[in-house]
């Protein structure tokens, strides 16, 4: 291997490099601009994300392995990277006001968001286990810090500690899995592992199975599948609301990207087995997530459990495999991002100023006090519940259709039943909003600083409806981008 690198090498990781580089720039600016408003840094971050998105779009349709095949820019990674950029952009938009309300003028926040996003992008484009691991760690460590960002708040501390300890614990399992896979195949590159598994002798090797098991445990924790999910509600509840929005969408999508790559590119030969494991996990995850969400009084916590069950829906697609289903994963990742972040944006906006509103009872009569916000929340809830003409429905439809197409009727039935159950708790907030007399008051002050929040809400709303009514474009792109993953080319 020659130390000289070609243009392709650099092209393949250009968006990631841009994100990381600009993260450092944001840090520098923050250093020299002490005490001044960080709003400009937020806008700089948005600009960066836009530029990275532009680069990604430019790279569409390419197939650029770089650095000895350890990273790749293909349509799969780009599709996911676009999702991450949307996640990050929405998070930045909803964070500005949130941080200012709490007097946290720290530009590091945006730098960390950028680093976390870069980590996710590395995970999506990494093509060996080391790159994926490093991306995951950048993401995880940034997330731990973001969870604990409200340094004075015990809940935030506690959230960070729980996330950190359990996250590191799960990382141990993940690493052990990588180690065993390496031991069995002598390589950490996904393509080489695939080649090694083509040999039936390797296929019998218990290292492979144990390694697969360890990997599944590690990823299941990161994606919060039952029974590895228990940290989720605590961490999500305690973290700053804007960070919760980020955590419940971005990292999960990134882990699914990495998981799909690992399972379909490297470990495709073991599919029959992990399919069975995931079948059980998916059924458990959907059911437990939904049942527990039913009993929550705190909306953040309810959304945490709901995010567990949504991970279950996506997992169903992994069980099915196949182009259709994997396209469903990408489609759902974006759909879930939009509807979930939108809901969080409404939470943050209505909590702006004097009082925090995170309990159901805080939203009594909200639909009449704030018709526009109430309607937006209603649409987000409908989408999460999977009512037609919203992104949530299109995503679920795509997934369940693929699952049925592959013959997993019972899994589909469990999924449908769950999505029926989920209506109850998503509906609960609309019941409170529209059918209980107002006890609270409308958002008393509307400081000019809320504009980014409104942009986030309107943007997610438009996205949810657009994906619901015209799912064709994004679906087309998703389908296109997974074709090569399936064939392993």
């Amino acid at each position, binding site marked *: 291997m020659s130390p000289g690198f070609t243009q392709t090498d650099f092209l393949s990781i250009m968006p990631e490099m841009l994100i990381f580089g600009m993260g450092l720039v944001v840090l520098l600016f923050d250093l020299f601009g002490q005490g001044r408003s960080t709003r400009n840094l937020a806008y700089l971050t948005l600009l960066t994300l836009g530029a990275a998105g532009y680069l990604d779009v430019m790279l569409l349709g390419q197939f650029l392995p770089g650095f000895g095949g350890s990273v790749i820019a293909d349509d799969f990674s780009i599709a996911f990277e676009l999702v991450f950029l949307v996640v990050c952009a929405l998070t930045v938009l909803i964070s500005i006001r949130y941080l200012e309300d709490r007097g946290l003028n720290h530009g590091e926040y945006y730098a960390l968001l950028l680093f976390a996003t870069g980590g996710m992008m590395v995970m999506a484009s990494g093509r060996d286990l080391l790159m994926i691991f490093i991306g995951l760690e950048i993401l995880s460590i940034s997330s731990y810090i973001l969870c604990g960002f409200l340094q004075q708040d015990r809940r935030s501390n506690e959230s960070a500690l729980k996330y950190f300890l359990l996250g590191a614990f799960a990382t141990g399992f993940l690493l052990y899995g990588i180690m065993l896979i390496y031991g069995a195949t002598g390589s950490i590159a996904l393509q080489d592992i695939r080649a090694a598994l083509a040999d039936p002798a390797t296929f019998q090797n218990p290292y492979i199975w144990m390694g697969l098991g360890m990997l599944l445990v590690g990823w299941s924790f990161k994606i919060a599948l039952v029974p590895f999910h228990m940290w989720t509600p*605590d961490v999500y509840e305690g973290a700053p609301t804007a960070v919760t929005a980020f955590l419940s969408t971005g990292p999960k999508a990134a882990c699914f990207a990495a998981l799909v790559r690992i399972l379909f590119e490297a470990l495709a030969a073991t599919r029959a087995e992990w399919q069975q494991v995931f079948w059980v996990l998916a059924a458990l995850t959907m059911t437990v997530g939904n049942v527990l969400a039913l009993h929550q009084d705190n909306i953040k916590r309810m959304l945490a459990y709901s995010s567990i069950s949504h991970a279950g829906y996506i997992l169903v697609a992994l069980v099915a495999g196949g182009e259709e289903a994997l396209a469903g994963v990408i489609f759902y990742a974006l759909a879930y991002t939009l509807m979930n972040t939108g809901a969080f944006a409404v939470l943050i906006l209505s909590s702006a100023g004097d009082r925090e509103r995170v309990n159901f009872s805080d939203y009594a009569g909200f639909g009449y006090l704030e018709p526009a916000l109430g309607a937006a929340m209603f649409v987000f809830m409908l989408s999460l519940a999977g009512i*037609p003409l919203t992104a949530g429905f299109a995503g679920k439809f*795509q997934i369940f259709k693929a699952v049925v197409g592959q013959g997993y009727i019972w899994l*589909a*039935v469990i999924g449908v039943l769950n999505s029926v159950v989920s209506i109850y708790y998503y509906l609960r907030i609309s019941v409170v909003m529209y059918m209980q007399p107002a006890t609270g008051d409308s958002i008393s002050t509307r400081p000019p600083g809320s504009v980014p929040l409104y942009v986030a809400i309107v943007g997610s709303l438009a996205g949810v409806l657009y994906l619901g009514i015209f799912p064709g474009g994004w679906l087309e792109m998703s389908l296109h981008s997974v074709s090569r993953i399936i064939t392993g080319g």
Partner: protein
Amino acid sequence: MNEYLWLIPALPLLGFVLNGLVAPRFGKGFVKVVGPGVVGLSFALSIAAFCEMLQAPGQSITQHAFTWLESGGLYVPIAFVVDRLSGLYILIVTGVGFLIHIYSVGYMGDDDEYAFWRFFAYLNLFLFFMLLLVLGSSFLLLFVGWEGVGLCSYLLIGYYFDKDSAATAAKKAFVVNRIGDFGFIVATLLIFMNFGTLEFAEVNARAPGVLAAGGGLVTAITLLLFLGATGKSAQIPLYVWLPDAMEGPTPVSALIHAATMVTAGLYLVARMSGLFVLAPTTMAVVAIIGAATAFFAATIGMAQYDIKRVLAYSTVSQLGYMFMAMGVGAFMAGIFHVMTHAFFKALLFLGSGSVIHAMHHEQDMRRMGGLLKHMPITGYTYIIGALAIGGVPLFTAGFFSKDEILWQSFASPAGHPLLWAVGAVTALMTAFYMFRTVALTFFGESRVDKHTAEHLHESPWTMTLPLSVLAVLSIVGGWIGIPHVLGHGVGIGNALEHYFEGFFAKVPAEVAHHEASTELLLMGLTSVLALGCMYGAYVLFSRNLARAEALKKALSPLQKLLEKKYFIDELYEWVVIKPVYYTSKLLLWRLVDVRIIDGMVNGVGNGVRHVGGALRIIHNGVIENYAVGIAVGAALIFYFLVY
């Protein structure tokens, strides 16, 4: 003027957008014009589409709006189809919808501006979804409409959200409907799996080839579809939501819970007739459930005092009738009754609304009486409606459609004399309780309290005009389906039968031959008895209230049972809702989450700490327990994979 079908649902949607977004700026006058206006236009277009459809080859026109989903083998265009079934439906939906919109202008006129535009926005939105449901060419589009109407129904039942009962009723409706939706979704998935398409036309056409007649699969699919239909059309066991749905404003009850939405289940069954005829078991279930619901709801209706509740149970009962018809393979008769029922039931609801409006939202018939002289138009039109539903022979719409159903349940190859008997008894009960309402409300002595009596007045023209139009339709609407035995003599053919010639799939069986005299005999028998019941109810409840009370006393246990609706709501509460609630709460929440997962509670206090072994678990630390979960899960996965 060629690609205009999409406008039919789009116009109400436009109305929704205008009323919802712009209206607050322009005030009530704007809403009064836009709300009904868009529906009127939509009605005009529907007529045009209907006429065009009649001329078109195959009596069906399809127009593609755009492609919604296109992915690997599944191509879901947004396409609208007007054929003989949906053509009739859109006429009913937009026509009756238009009249009810006009009526609402008067009925809701007293509400404040804010509530007013909200009401029309919801109502327009409802029509949009209903039209989507009817016009859609595939299951998917139908499902969009199906969910949409459920949503609007929910919003409109809970319209008076400050009333607790309204909010509860709304929730109940939504929840019960979801149970039905589950069946519908699973059926759709199964159909897609077996047919690879969700287009109605294709599924119906290929059904005999793909699914074995009478096989388990087709029975499962149709039963699941029927489960969906029972949810939407309020049949046993999912009927409980409809009577409670009367908490909504009366025009809503008329439009959604009598004329249109509740017939969506029937539409689904009729639309999928090709599948249903392949499953004799399902057909039998449909017929029996329909007959049972018809009978059961009618008995409850006899003992209710709330005028709207009587009408609600009557609706459930009539819907049961229609399902009975479909169950014996008489799809046409069912759809015929859907149409006539839409006319007279909307009329009855609007009439009751007019009364309620005049009585300042009093709905208890025990506090009415003798209203005919105060509000003649309302009174006479209501009586016409009652005559129609009671089936007064030869000149009301209800007679023809009801008689068709009864005859088919007797004579059709899938029919049975027992079904006929249940249907006939139900018809008699219907005649009885409808005239009970007429007598209690419009005749006899006035039991209205003084204050209200001073303000009694006939409703404004916006309300009486729709009443009059519907009254006319309740009479002439049936003439398109005059049975052969009657029409033959005077040289009138059965226009409806001709219209639906060859549209519905037929139950594969030998057609039993029945004498025309049998039909005439049965017809005459039920008609005479029905007339008798009407007269009896009229006499009993307008002149001899005292005797009615005595009768009631004599039958008090039965009366109580009926008044309390067989305690079905209580039964549901105890058998279904409470157990589910407590299982989930006690078992899953307490056991799994409090004890195992989240076993530590310092807040419980020191006292509890030393109580018993089970609570010792409470001392455990959270993170560790979470880690335990991970370790256990890990070990199990390893065990599965490696060993």
